């Protein structure tokens, strides 16, 4: 676990990022400064194409900025090697993907458990933990289902997958390794 309780979750300074498109260049971010204290729910709102996804990709450590620096949980991302960055993501960043259902071959509980497995948890233990959390979210009865069969859930008064996928551009950095950020995202959403 990186940082302490007083460390800010995210500190960005003068972030700039542009993409080469053909011969030209698209500037996605220009001089972004951002501070997010630990424990705060932050929502990024803006018109399409304004750079939301680009910014959270940089903060989540899956995209490198052209300029500026970004520290997450007190760790300067630019100082990490590729593998250190991957491990850092595994320990600290939860992802909710936009149009993408995670791993269709895994049950809901298994999908939620993936981040724990990545962090070295034993599979059954991780699945039990994931089931417990899903239970808290009111999804306890369906933890053995597959994502693809999930839409049926909404007819039984369970949160619909649309809710789970509400995350266009939503991301989380947590100070504790979470089994999956999804349930917490849900809790926060409600």
């Amino acid at each position, binding site marked *: 676990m990186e940082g302490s309780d007083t460390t800010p979750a995210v500190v960005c300074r003068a972030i700039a990022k542009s993409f080469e498109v053909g011969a030209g260049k698209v500037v996605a971010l220009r001089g972004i400064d951002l501070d997010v204290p630990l424990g705060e729910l932050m929502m990024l709102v803006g018109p399409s194409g304004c750079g939301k*996804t680009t910014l*959270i*990709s940089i903060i*989540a450590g*899956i*995209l490198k900025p052209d300029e500026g620096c970004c520290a997450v949980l007190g760790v300067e991302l630019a100082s990490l090697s590729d*593998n250190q960055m*991957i*491990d*850092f*993501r*595994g*320990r600290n*960043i939860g*992802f909710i*993907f*936009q*149009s*993408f259902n*995670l*791993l*269709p*071959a*895994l049950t809901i509980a*298994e999908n939620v458990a*993936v*981040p724990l*497995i*990545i*962090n070295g948890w034993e*599979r059954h233990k991780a699945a039990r933990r994931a089931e417990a959390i899903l239970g808290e979210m009111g999804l306890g009865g369906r933890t053995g289902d597959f994502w693809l069969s999930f839409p049926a859930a909404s007819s039984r008064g369970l949160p619909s997958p649309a809710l789970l996928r509400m995350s266009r*551009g939503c991301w989380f950095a947590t100070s504790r390794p979470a089994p999956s950020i999804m349930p917490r995202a849900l809790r926060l959403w409600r």
Partner: protein
Amino acid sequence: MNFIALQMLFGDRGKYGAMIVGITFAALIMTQQPAIFFGLLSRTYSYIEDMTLPDIWVMDPTVQFVEENKPLRDTELQRVRGVAGVAWATPLFKGMLVARLPDGARKVIDVSGVDDATLIGAPNVMLEGKITDLRQDDAIILDLEASNRFATTGPDGVKHPVKVGDVLEINDHRAVVVGIAKMRRTFTTQPLAFTTYTRAMRYAPAQRRQLTYILVKAQPGAALDEITARIRRETGLAAYTAAAFKKVNLDYWMKNTGIPINFGISVMLGFLVGAAIAGQSFFNFVRESLRQFAALKAMGVRNGTLVRMVLLQAAVVGSIGYGFGIGLSALFGVAIRDSVLAYYMPWQLLLSTAAGVALIVVLAALVGIRSVIRLDPATVFRS
């Protein structure tokens, strides 16, 4: 992570099935064509293999294959018996003779005349009758294949194979069928008949009434190569161990027919087609899983682990497809046993198919892995 890799594999039944089918098919054609080839080749020496007793075969030095039947002087038998290390030696007559069937048709038949006293060289597997029945008057034993091929069509249009008790004529001498034997098919596919040496002499035309082979058993513990060398030196004849004689036959047909090249080409084509199918199907699977790999990478899975996952998937798909492939191939072999098609699946063939499948799957996996390693995790947020 192994669990996740396997679930990714098994999760998509359709793709998983297609991949298994692809690799099964590849393993099947990689095994089946060569098995027919080896089966065909093994027929060049099946006659020698069917004679299990002799250690050493002695013959005219110019013999190139077992059906060549070059005569020896009868006195050579005694000379061979005198060679140190020889436990026993028996005569064998072998020649193509013309048989007249009960319905009057004339057919060429490959007649073996075995030692009257010991019957060494007579068939091992008798379907009807016993080899000692050869001691009866004018007795011959027919191979099952010969009995079927000599079948006569009755007035009712039904085919009647030659059976025990039927009488043929070989070179104007009576030949009574006393038994039906099961022999392996030979490369020259002539119908086989067995009788005693003395009777074979009578059946043979006057100028061919001579010994063809001398079958030799070495004394227990004697070195076969030394004995063959000694026989060669002392008699001037050719002497081969059974294994070496088999090879003489094999080499003759390999060298003098287009079979190896023809089959080599079809085996190669089979391998390429199989490789293309197996490689393509696995590569497609990896490519279609790239989004999932990208997600895992974003969530903190290192390249090394992703590579291990892909290799595990390759190993599982490869092994299962291989198992089905050689299984089907073996079933094919069982289905065509006793037919004109040859089939032989030595362990070397199974090993080479395994290597072939492994090579293809690993190559496909490596190509897939390249894209997995190059994956940009940022793609997970792009729709």
